[in-house]
């Protein structure tokens, strides 16, 4: 065996061209598989809860008898459910919020989980440094300012070793850091986590000014339903078997019911989702399919590379027929020959695998950077562990072994059975006695045809995703981002009261309006194509009611606005008017503007203008005032992934403002250069007017639209499949070129004879190119059928492109056909330059 290895190394070193080609092909293919496996393993397979993950579930509550009327829990409900019961061994609570970290110019918003002391225990987590929260710190109203940092935030703060016990300013208050979490702990899903954890006891401290919905409700308020519950089931229970015990547990909610008129509630448990933070149950079926598809297509890349290698091995085997004949003649058994060839294959595969592992680690680091950059704009931390570890190395070794078997076994089997007499007499050219038909379908030709067919499916897939990415660029947002600047402000970080925050934001608006080149300015609490959503339910006064006699609600994105908002954003006002300055400053103003889709939904049979609507959420005094519809605006998008723009409702700024606001400025000059250059000037102007301005970000609106998560997802799909398609194309073309070059080299004598007896260069070109064209046509025909099947499998993942898009199908076929014919043409052209005298004299 050691001798086999030594001989294999010597042989491969003697053929550096072949070795480099083989190792690079394998590195690309194994690297892709290793990288994709790392992603799929981390995102889909690896448990993200350390201890008995199958016992950890999310708990949801819905009104009994109502199909989808879910809401979160109150603190009192959490307390009632936490008492000893026969479902949960442990129950924890979490509220999702965001806080401002730092002060002044350095302030930055971070997604934060407010959790109780049981939360970390349920997740089986241990801190990387320091400790978790105590029961006392978690108690509602405790207001003990302590914080646990994520690994990402700890790194951003300088990876200080003395971080425990150090102060941290959050929403203007000083907190003490008591712990740092391990890098891979997310506390909610497999991919992303918050940047910061705070105890539930500080909830009133950090959310008093940011919660526009509950108008400053406290955690203890029985009508404040903000807690998401996560529990660990008693050993032996599963989500299915636990369901039988839930009605008895749900009865406890009756005892703490805030509104006696509200009906009884039911409970539901669901395993933790891997990719989302849900406030109500939701399936994640589509993402598993995506993982399978990614692995399958990466497998196709590996298959193409192996076919390529198998071809090279067959060619080398043919050239080494005499060597094998000699070995057989001196007593080598067939197994010895196969072992020798498999050892050569394994050496190549391991070298390719090692290089591939490096490439995949590098590519995944790039991916993590890209995700981290995206998530930083969303204020999350990425926890996906993609660095190569034992699992990844093991999987890579598995790919190497699989590749070896795929590309080396069949050639080894074939060439290890030499006909000694024939091989020793052979003149080293192509096998004798082969007819045109069988030559056309010879193993090497079949392998290269299979490569072409498979490559077409991958190039086609890449084309579909690329077309999706292009289509995404042509989707009209429904507003005009050109010339737009957006400053993200968060006055809640300054611990001011609401009138003071409104006054300061107004001052910033006025300052922006005085900026040279500023055409229009506005304030809004929600940013189209931004990272955050704020949804409210709305019903038409006198509109339709459901079977339970209650009004039917329609959800829509909620934005409080001031200034010349619609004109600044470029959204047409279709009917009616905007808000007056007095309405904008009046927290009790009873007016609302709807977009056309919301208007149609609430008032399908009449014009909504002048009609009245009610929000589902009551005011702090419990009333639900009627709001008059004073304007209808055009629908506009919030992202590119949704099929249609969302429904929207707009209220005066004072009615919906809770501290966070986006200051919009439309500049006269909309070209990218001028717009970019006006960013620093606006920053300076705003800061000079208000040195303590809580400015979180200042960007151009085109940049915000471009970096939207939807564009990122579509682009990422195009990059992934583009890489697959690109590698497949290169490998397949290299395969065609290799086979044809080899054929020309081996058939030089025949070419010489043909030319000596009258063949002209065109005849020789036709001989070689004709076969290449026919083989390409046949393999692309088969590939088209495969591509259509793959298109069907991809259909759920495609963005605004048909899975059978004829343009992509035609383009991919034409691209591959051109590349393959070119790859066949180059050796064929070389064949026409064979000098018959030289070719025949070489005999």
């Amino acid at each position, binding site marked *: 065996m050691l001798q086999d290895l030594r001989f294999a190394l010597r042989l491969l070193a003697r053929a550096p061209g072949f070795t480099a080609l083989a190792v690079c092909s394998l590195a690309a293919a194994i690297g892709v598989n290793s990288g994709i496996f790392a992603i799929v393993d981390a995102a889909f397979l690896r448990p993200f809860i350390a201890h008995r993950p199958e016992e950890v579930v999310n708990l949801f509550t819905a009104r009994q008898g109502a199909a989808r009327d879910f809401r979160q829990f109150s603190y009192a409900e959490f307390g009632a459910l936490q008492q000893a019961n026969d479902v949960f061994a442990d129950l924890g609570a979490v509220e999702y919020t965001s806080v401002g970290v730092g002060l002044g110019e350095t302030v930055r918003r971070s997604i934060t989980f407010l959790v109780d002391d049981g939360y970390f225990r349920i997740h089986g987590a241990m801190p990387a440094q320091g400790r978790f929260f105590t029961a006392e710190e978690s108690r509602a109203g405790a207001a003990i300012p302590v914080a646990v940092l994520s690994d990402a935030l700890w790194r951003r703060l300088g990876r200080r070793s003395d971080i425990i016990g150090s102060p941290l300013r959050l929403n203007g208050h000083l907190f003490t850091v008591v712990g740092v979490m391990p890098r891979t702990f997310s506390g909610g899903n497999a991919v992303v986590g918050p940047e910061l954890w705070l105890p539930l006891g500080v909830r009133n401290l950090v959310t008093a000014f940011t919660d526009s919905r509950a108008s400053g409700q406290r955690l203890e308020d029985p009508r404040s339903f903000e807690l998401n519950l996560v529990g660990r089931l008693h050993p032996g229970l599963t989500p299915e078997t636990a369901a039988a015990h839930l009605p008895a547990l749900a009865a406890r909610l009756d005892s703490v019911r805030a509104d006696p008129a509200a009906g009884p509630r039911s409970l539901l448990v669901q395993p933790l989702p891997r990719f989302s933070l849900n406030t109500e149950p939701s399936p994640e079926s589509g993402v598993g399919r995506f993982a399978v598809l990614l692995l399958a297509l990466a497998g196709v890349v590996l298959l193409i590379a192996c076919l390529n290698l198998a071809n090279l091995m067959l060619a080398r085997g043919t050239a080494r027929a005499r060597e094998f004949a000699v070995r057989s003649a001196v007593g080598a058994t067939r197994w010895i020959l196969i072992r020798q060839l498999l050892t050569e294959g394994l050496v190549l595969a391991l070298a390719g695998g090692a290089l591939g592992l490096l490439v995949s680690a590098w590519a995944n680091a790039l991916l993590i950077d890209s995700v981290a950059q995206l998530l930083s704009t969303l204020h999350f931390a990425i926890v996906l562990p993609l660095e190569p570890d034992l699992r990844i190395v093991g999987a890579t070794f598995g790919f190497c072994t699989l590749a070896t078997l795929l590309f080396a076994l069949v050639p080894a089997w074939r060439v290890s059975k030499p006909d000694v007499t024939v091989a020793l007499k052979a003149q080293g050219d192509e096998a004798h006695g082969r*007819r*045109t038909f069988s030559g056309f379908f010879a193993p090497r030709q079949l392998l290269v045809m299979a490569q072409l067919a498979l490559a077409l499916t991958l190039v086609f897939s890449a084309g579909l995703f690329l077309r999706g990415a292009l289509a995404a660029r042509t989707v009209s947002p429904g507003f005009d981002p050109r010339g737009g600047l957006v400053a993200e402000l968060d006055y809640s970080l300054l611990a001011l009261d609401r009138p003071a925050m409104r006054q300061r934001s107004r001052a910033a608006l006025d300052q922006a309006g005085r900026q040279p080149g500023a055409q229009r300015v506005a304030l809004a609490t929600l940013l189209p194509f931004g990272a955050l959503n704020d949804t409210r339910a709305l019903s038409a006064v006198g509109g339709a009611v459901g079977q339970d006699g209650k009004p039917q609600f329609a959800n829509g994105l909620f934005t409080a606005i001031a200034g010349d908002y619609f004109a600044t954003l470029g959204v047409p006002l279709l009917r009616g008017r905007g808000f007056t300055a007095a309405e904008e400053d009046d927290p009790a103003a009873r007016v609302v503007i709807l977009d056309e889709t919301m208007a149609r939904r609430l008032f399908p049979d009449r014009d909504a203008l002048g009609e009245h609507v009610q929000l589902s959420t009551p005011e702090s005094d419990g009333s639900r005032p009627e709001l008059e519809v004073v304007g209808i605006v055009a629908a506009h998008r919030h992202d590119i992934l949704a099929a249609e723009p969302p429904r929207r409702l707009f209220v005066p700024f004072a009615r919906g403002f809770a501290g966070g606001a986006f200051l919009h400025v439309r500049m006269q000059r909309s070209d990218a250069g001028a717009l970019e250059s006006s960013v620093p000037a606006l920053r300076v102007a705003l800061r000079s007017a208000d040195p303590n301005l809580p400015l979180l970000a200042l960007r151009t609106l085109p940049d915000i639209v471009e970096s939207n998560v939807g564009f990122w997802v579509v682009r990422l799909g195009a990059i992934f499949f583009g890489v697959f398609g690109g590698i497949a194309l290169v490998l397949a073309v290299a395969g065609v070129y290799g086979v044809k070059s080899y054929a020309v080299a081996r058939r030089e004598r*025949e070419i*010489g004879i043909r030319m000596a007896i009258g063949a002209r260069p065109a*005849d020789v070109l036709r001989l070689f190119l004709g076969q290449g064209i026919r083989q390409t046509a046949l393999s692309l025909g088969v590939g088209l059928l495969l591509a259509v099947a793959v298109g069907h499998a991809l259909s759920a993942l495609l963005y605004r492109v048909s899975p059978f898009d004829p343009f992509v199908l035609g383009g991919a076929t034409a691209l591959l056909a051109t590349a393959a014919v070119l790859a066949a043409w180059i050796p064929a052209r070389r064949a026409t330059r064979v000098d018959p005298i030289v070719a025949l004299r070489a005999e």
Partner: protein
Amino acid sequence: MLTLRHLSRVYPLKSGPYFALRNINLEIKEGEFVSIMGPSGSGKSTLLHILGLHDSEWEGEYQFADTDVHRLGKSARADLQKKNIGFIFQAYHLIDDLTVAENLEVPLSYRNVPRKERQAIVCDTLDRFHIVGKRDLFPSQLSGGQQQLVGVARALVAHPTLLLADEPTGNLHSDQGHEIMELFRKLNREDGVTIVQVTHSIENADYGSRIVRLADGMLVNN
């Protein structure tokens, strides 16, 4: 039929120009059977490949019938070759992947002979050379003599006026060699085919009407 004047063939080597042929003046009349002899490296095969228009990198004048070959372009030379010249190799050089019949058909296909006509010609040729029974065999299934017989048949299938043979019996044992040489004599005498052969064998040279001797790329006796 063939006239060479001051013909030279020089290979540029690193060590300086190498004269494979030097100032060759030679005339071969129609119907002649000429044998070119000389030691190895004397330029026999080089001269034969120039006559067969396989090589175009020579200097001097070459007249084929009434045509000045030295004035012809690549394409015209190829046409002249296809129309007039048949070539036989010492190592037979049949195409291994093709049957005997297909090997005979190849030169015709390069001369744009229609398929039906090609098949008829191939049948006639197989019959004439008494190899009808071998038509579907591959070269590797034939003996050396049989392969060379097919080689001769292939050279003649397009009815050339000039047959060039490069040591046609070099790989054959003496009986097979005599058989091929008898065939050459018959072709020359009965069909009027002009033949130029390269040979080391004085016995084979005696089948011809004239011997041309080369040494160090120069004509030493004509």
